[in-house]
């Protein structure tokens, strides 16, 4: 009986988005009402009849609820929710995931780079001289921790950078490196510079950022 009453109400409602909540609300109401009638001494069947009768005409109730819940309003709200959800996923796929994977790649890259350096690059330059040099380019201080070299007159300056918080007013982003006493050329790789020397000897390494020069004595003679 209760189910038939609710089905009749629902059959008059066109909006599918409200059927579930209306059905639950009405069936809860009827359950409470039946319970009250049973407590007043009615048997279960009579209590159900009384409860349903008290509700009124199910068709009229359905029509009235149908009028209260126009489909287009809920359609609009559902469509806006779908649009918002799609937008969130687009943002996640287009912006968040690529950036997270970039960060991972960067991190991964660093890890691999260290492996590459220690396993493949450094062994090419078996001799190592620890250094503690610093020079500035714009707002970045470069530290030179190590100079590695080999018997083929190739050297490797290993740099690490430390960024300062206060940017320099000078818009100078590059630097030059020169050698005194020997001739040298260089090219940058990963975190360092490969130095091609015409001979392995003591020399003066000069960094020039356009405004200042830093001179460092590099003594290699002892190694050979």
């Amino acid at each position: 009986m209760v189910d038939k009453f609710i089905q009749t109400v629902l059959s008059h409602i066109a909006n599918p988005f409200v059927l579930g909540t209306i059905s639950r609300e009405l069936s809860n109401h009827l359950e409470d009402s039946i319970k009250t009638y049973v407590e007043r001494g009615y048997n279960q069947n009579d209590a159900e009849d009384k409860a349903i009768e008290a509700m009124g005409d199910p068709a009229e109730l359905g029509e009235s609820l149908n009028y209260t819940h126009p489909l287009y309003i809920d359609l609009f709200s559902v469509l806006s929710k779908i649009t918002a959800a799609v937008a969130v996923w687009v943002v996640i796929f287009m912006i968040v995931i690529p950036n997270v994977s970039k960060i991972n790649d960067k991190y991964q890259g660093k890890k691999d780079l260290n492996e590459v350096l220690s396993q493949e690059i450094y062994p090419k330059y078996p001799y190592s001289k620890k250094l503690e040099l610093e020079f500035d380019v714009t707002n970045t201080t470069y530290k030179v921790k190590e100079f590695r070299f080999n018997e083929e007159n190739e050297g490797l300056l290993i740099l690490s950078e430390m960024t300062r918080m206060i940017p320099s007013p000078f818009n100078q982003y590059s630097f030059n490196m020169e050698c005194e006493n020997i001739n040298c050329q260089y090219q940058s790789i990963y975190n360092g510079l490969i130095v091609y020397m015409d001979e392995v000897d003591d020399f003066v390494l000069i960094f020039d950022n356009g405004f200042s020069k830093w001179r460092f004595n590099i003594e290699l003679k002892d190694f050979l």
Partner: protein
Amino acid sequence: MSDNREWLRTGAQLMVLSLIDEKDRYGYEIIQELERRSDEVFQMKEGTLYPILHRLENEGHLKSYKQKTVENRERKYYRITKKGKKQLQEEKEKWSVFSNSVIKVVNGMELTLNGR
């Protein structure tokens, strides 16, 4: 007829809003309270409450939420909103003007009748 319906609608809406203004309530509780307070004069068809509640919610005068009972049944409670409180105040005033006018008219008629 339509005016009559309008007054019935306003009266029912006013009673529903003021009952929910006292505390959050669910549908059946409202029906019971209406019957109890009106000494069972207001025995509306219980189903008619729900279009009123849903319309008040659609208009932003009420907000509903679900709560589980001890028997683990889900009940839909209604809470009055700020907008609803404002609406209640306005309707109370309108109703008071209306009922006073009715009493004045009725009393006036009685006086006239008695005067004959």
